[in-house]
């Protein structure tokens, strides 16, 4: 790895990917390295290739007769069986049954087998489906090929690559991302949480000014709203031997709610308005309206002098003037739909409204049920009241505070180009802070909203080599295996489960926890499953700690984990006493291993099983 010439950051997004890079020269001390964004060649129409800064995360699986020979030619490949990028997105909107989208959300959905060929979800029999893992591999392969095409002398597998993931990704989703990178031929790519990447990008972009904008004792709230997800993190700044050191102290839950939901919400407002006038929009027109709303929304949110933006729904046929429908989007509609719908003014005690799910819901993605980002934020801050209490230099968490008090806010994501939305969040937060006699939070300015994540990831590659400021933190959860207690079976009553802490909070990359003191008797050749839990609030539990009960908010159940003792050196059916041990790899994934009490064998515990 010492031969790496570039640090490469990849934003593997739900709706778009981007790649940024920075040269790893001798001047690693500087925080001001020149950063570039790789234009990514991709199909923009059949037989037409253009290099764009963003690669839409869509794969289109065409019918054999659908395209002419050569229509899928890329600069580095004659023929491919699928289209990826802009053309896949535009064609896919017209034929959704052949389009893979939101693969990243599926990758983090523990309710499905993420290695099974399930995408597109509603594809007919004849379409060869992809697994969420395979789709991620293809995006990474495309980025790899684009890189190698541009830099034939510095292939990507020899560069220092960092791939970003939502801070809320569970261990299985992290491992699947690392596995996708491995399959795509990346050599030991690092994983980095997106809100951290956004902060790195801000530090780097501030040209050293960040030291004036934050100081020890600050708690920075990062609000990252992407196309499909909302990601929240808290980063505390502490003083270590005279130097400022940011510590990521908490991350929020995985919220499937993003900018695309907002455009869609506006499109439905328009659609309902036209319905009242007797015009029914078909799915093609609705898509055109969604696109129109995205543009109109930005105009109305940014330019305060305009009260309405005309919207024209184009005809699908060639009669453009005669067939188009004219309507308009008003400031009031945007305000009601977006500001009241997604960013309502709420109290600090507000919590997202959860409706009971029906069993059928599990088939699709677990979208956020409450669209109000401010309520999700209130819940996150309320849950993390104690997050900074153990750090040196932070006043013993304020008496009577009902939520942790951020002192600064960093926004990330294209929707925050509108100051109205970021101000709305800041107003909410400052209203909550004022009620508890805390000073208002500052807005950290100067963030690059679209490409910050990829840029920050490239910067992280340099940081790992000792240049620049590094955010500390380690894992933002503690992990537990569920142990069923022995009790007489009672029909209709599940045996109570105890949670045994196997990995403490805050494990740094490349470190291992102590092995569990408890031993388990595992039967050779018979896979054993454990229930698996995480907690983002229990910060002091040590390995081996047994929880007999907990409140619903404290622990969250993840997918099951499985360990299987191979019969290589042992007899089938033999019972082997083993201990479990957790470690965090250099890449940033959690690894659980079982090892016999006597002997040096090691078995990997699978985090992703169905």
């Amino acid at each position, binding site marked *: 790895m010492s031969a790496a010439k570039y640090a490469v950051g990849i934003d593997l997004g739900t709706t778009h990917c981007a790649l940024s890079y920075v040269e790893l020269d001798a001047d690693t001390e500087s925080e001001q390295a020149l950063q570039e964004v790789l234009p990514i*060649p991709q199909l*923009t*129409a*059949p*037989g*037409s*290739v*253009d290099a764009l800064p963003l690669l839409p995360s869509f794969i289109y699986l065409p019918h054999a007769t659908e395209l*002419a*020979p*050569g*229509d899928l*030619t890329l*600069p580095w490949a004659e023929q491919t069986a699928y289209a990826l990028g802009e053309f896949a997105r535009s064609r896919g909107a017209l034929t959704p049954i052949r389009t893979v989208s939101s693969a990243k959300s599926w990758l983090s959905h523990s309710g499905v087998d993420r290695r099974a060929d399930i995408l597109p979800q509603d594809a007919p029999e004849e379409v060869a489906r992809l697994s969420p893992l395979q789709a991620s591999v293809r995006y990474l392969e495309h980025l790899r090929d684009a890189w190698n095409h541009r830099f034939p002398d510095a292939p990507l597998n020899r560069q220092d690559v960092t791939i970003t993931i939502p801070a809320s990704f569970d261990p299985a989703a992290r491992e699947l991302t690392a596995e996708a990178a491995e399959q795509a031929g990346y050599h030991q790519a690092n994983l980095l949480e997106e809100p951290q990447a956004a902060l790195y990008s801000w530090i780097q972009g501030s040209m050293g000014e960040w030291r004036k904008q934050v100081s020890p004792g600050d708690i920075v709230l990062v609000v990252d709203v992407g196309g499909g997800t909302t990601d929240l993190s808290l980063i505390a700044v502490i003083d270590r031997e005279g130097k400022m050191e940011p510590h990521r102290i908490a991350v929020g839950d995985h919220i499937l709610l993003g900018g695309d939901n907002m455009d869609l919400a506006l499109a439905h407002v328009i659609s309902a308005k036209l319905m009242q006038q007797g015009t029914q929009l078909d799915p093609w027109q609705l898509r055109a309206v969604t696109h129109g709303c995205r*543009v109109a929304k930005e105009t109305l949110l940014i330019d305060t002098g305009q009260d309405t933006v*005309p919207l*024209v729904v*184009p005809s*699908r046929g*060639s*009669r*453009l*003037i*005669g067939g*188009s429908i*004219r309507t308009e989007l008003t400031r009031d509609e945007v305000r009601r739909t977006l500001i009241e719908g997604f960013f309502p003014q709420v109290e600090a005690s507000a919590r997202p409204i959860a409706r009971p799910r029906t069993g059928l819901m599990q088939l699709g993605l677990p979208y956020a049920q409450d669209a109000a980002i401010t309520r999700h934020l209130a819940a996150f801050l309320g849950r993390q009241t104690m997050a900074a209490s153990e750090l040196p230099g932070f006043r013993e968490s304020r008496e009577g505070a009902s939520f942790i008090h951020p002192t600064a806010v960093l926004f990330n994501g294209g929707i925050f180009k509108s100051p109205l939305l970021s101000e709305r969040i800041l107003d909410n937060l400052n209203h909550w802070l004022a009620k508890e006699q805390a000073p208002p939070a500052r807005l950290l300015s100067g963030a690059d909203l679209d490409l910050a994540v990829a840029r920050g990831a490239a910067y992280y590659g340099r940081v790992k080599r000792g240049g620049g400021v590094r955010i500390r933190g380690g894992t933002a959860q503690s992990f537990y295996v569920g142990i069923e207690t022995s009790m007489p079976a009672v029909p209709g009553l599940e045996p109570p489960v105890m949670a045994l802490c196997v990995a403490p909070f805050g494990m740094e990359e490349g470190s291992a926890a102590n092995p569990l003191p408890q031993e388990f008797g595992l039967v050779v050749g018979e896979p054993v499953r454990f229930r698996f839990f995480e907690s983002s609030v229990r910060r002091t539990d040590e390995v081996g700690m047994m929880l007999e009960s907990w409140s619903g908010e404290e622990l969250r159940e993840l997918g099951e984990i499985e360990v299987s003792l191979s019969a290589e050196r042992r007899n089938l059916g033999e019972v082997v006493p083993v201990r479990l041990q957790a470690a965090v790899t250099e890449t940033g994934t959690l690894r659980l291993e079982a090892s016999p009490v006597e002997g040096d064998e090691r078995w990997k515990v699978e985090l992703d099983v169905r």
Partner: protein
Amino acid sequence: MDHKTPSFPTRIALALSALFRVLFDPQFASAVERIRRGGVPISAETVQAGAEKPAPPPPLLKEAGPDAALQLLGLLQQEGRFIDFIEEDVAGYADAEIGAAARLVHDGCRRVLREHLTIEPVREETEGSRVTLERGFDATSVRVTGNVVGEPPFHGVVTHRGWRAGGVRLPKLAVGHDVTVLASAEVEL
């Protein structure tokens, strides 16, 4: 033929020296060209003699290839419904209806121009301001009209700032891609 075929190493040396002579010696290059067309090798004297004949005059006008034009037209249609708009008969529509469609066309075509071309004004001065054109001004980028007499410097008023394409970035096309299809017909199954 009174001399033997040269050996392989000799041929390598010959190929290398020939490469450079073709590049830097036009007469040698034209002799090689003649051999390639199947003609007999000719002596240096004949080459000299041939070179003295008046060469055919170079063409004064060139023909622009249609590919880039068709490609740009396809993009304008795809993003801005340009052809649909121009081909439609506007006579029967009210201005408001045409205006609504024009918004779509304007929005899309503008996006195409912004993405694929860098268009900038030739003159930075605002229209209506007085300018002086020095001797040797570029007649392609500035067109003088009206009282065109005497010698520069000329003094006048900018009536139009002009436009210049600072850069063209059209998508690359697959070899054999049919650019004459400006927009595919769509058939919903």
